[in-house]
């Protein structure tokens, strides 16, 4: 007769039981932790980052669903949901100016402005998380890394790798030219032209034929500090026939 009991299967089972118990304990501790620090989570951006990292380590997504433990116990979901709504409002208000593309910095500035003096502080990390949620909800939001930062896309323009790499190139001066694209990216003229045509078509780029040398393609989304006089969304709306 074969001896059963001690063998690979039994060890695995025992390990599993131990791990399960550990995970339960961990979860309970986390819940306790969460309830103690609910206020902190709402008030402190740094704390939120650390909390999120901790959750990620154990494979928990506090923003996974609207109902359930995390959002109810912590109001984490509410916080990011509200932030998501604010982000959408800012993007809508500025869309006429930048075609639906905005730098993370400008978005941050505008969100803080909208929240007023007494509102809780919001970090760029918070914005990215909220936008990731918006993205997952299929709202057309996108995040494009450029230079050392990100461009947030709020209008579902079709942007492929070629387009985003040209956007990254444009970040330096706020504009880009065919020559610059050819020199930096080693592309053929036609490929560069097609990308620029597409950016024009999507309303993300404006054509400047009076620039010295060759046509400049300007990207209002990258302008943030260069405006001296702004036309507000209200004025733009009123001015259109």
């Amino acid at each position, binding site marked *: 007769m074969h001896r059963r009991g001690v063998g690979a299967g039994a060890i695995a089972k025992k390990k599993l039981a131990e791990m399960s118990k550990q995970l339960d304990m961990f979860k309970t501790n986390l819940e306790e932790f969460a309830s103690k620090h609910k206020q902190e989570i709402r008030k402190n951006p740094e704390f939120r980052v650390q909390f999120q990292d901790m959750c990620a380590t154990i494979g928990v997504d506090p923003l996974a669903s609207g109902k359930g433990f995390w959002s109810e116990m912590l109001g984490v979901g509410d916080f990011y949901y509200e932030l998501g709504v604010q982000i959408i409002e800012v993007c809508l208000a500025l869309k*006429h*100016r930048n*075609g639906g593309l905005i730098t993370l910095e400008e978005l941050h500035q505008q969100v803080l402005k909208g929240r007023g003096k007494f509102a809780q502080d919001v970090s760029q990390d918070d914005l990215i998380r909220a936008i990731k949620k918006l993205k997952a909800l299929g709202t057309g939001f996108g995040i494009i890394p450029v230079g050392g930062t990100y461009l947030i896309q709020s209008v579902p323009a079709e942007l492929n790798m070629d387009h985003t790499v040209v956007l990254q190139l444009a970040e330096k001066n706020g504009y880009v030219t065919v020559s610059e694209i050819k020199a930096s990216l080693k592309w053929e003229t036609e490929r560069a032209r097609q990308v620029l045509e597409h950016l*024009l*078509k999507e*309303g993300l780029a*404006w*054509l*400047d*034929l*009076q620039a*010295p040398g*060759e*046509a400049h393609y300007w990207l209002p989304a990258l302008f943030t500090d260069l405006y001296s*006089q702004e*036309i507000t969304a209200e*004025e*733009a709306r009123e*001015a*259109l*026939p």
Partner: protein
Amino acid sequence: MAMSFEWPLQPNVDTRQKQLAAWCSLVLSFCRLHKQSSMTVMEAQESPLFNNVKLQRKLPVESIQIVLEELRKKGNLEWLDKSKSSFLIMWRRPEEWGKLIYQWVSRSGQNNSVFTLYELTNGEDTEDEEFHGLDEATLLRALQALQQEHKAEIITVSDGRGVKFF
């Protein structure tokens, strides 16, 4: 230096709309600030409004004409001659000025009073009003708008023109 233009304004239709709206807003702000109520197209071409020396950019005359036509459609511009070489520019439309003037008249209980044009825009009584200092051409059009609504009648007075309000 300047390349030949295939497009006087932005090629993308939506972008062009935004561009036109921005230009219209700029023209009105500029004229309001510099208290300019009329201009010739030649002047406009060379003025800092359409010719930005610092940026080394000029709006070509074809585009200027499109902007001016847009302003005309919105009621802020009127051509002063058939050849469209000079124009009246009103940062507020005549109807809007008319409304402001009539509101002042009613508020101060002066319906059925008669004013000279000068009194309206340069009199002591209107010093605090927005239409104080308004140029005569725009004022006339404002009063004509009120006349259409039967709220006023432009009349001749001793040494010029005046208006009676109802």
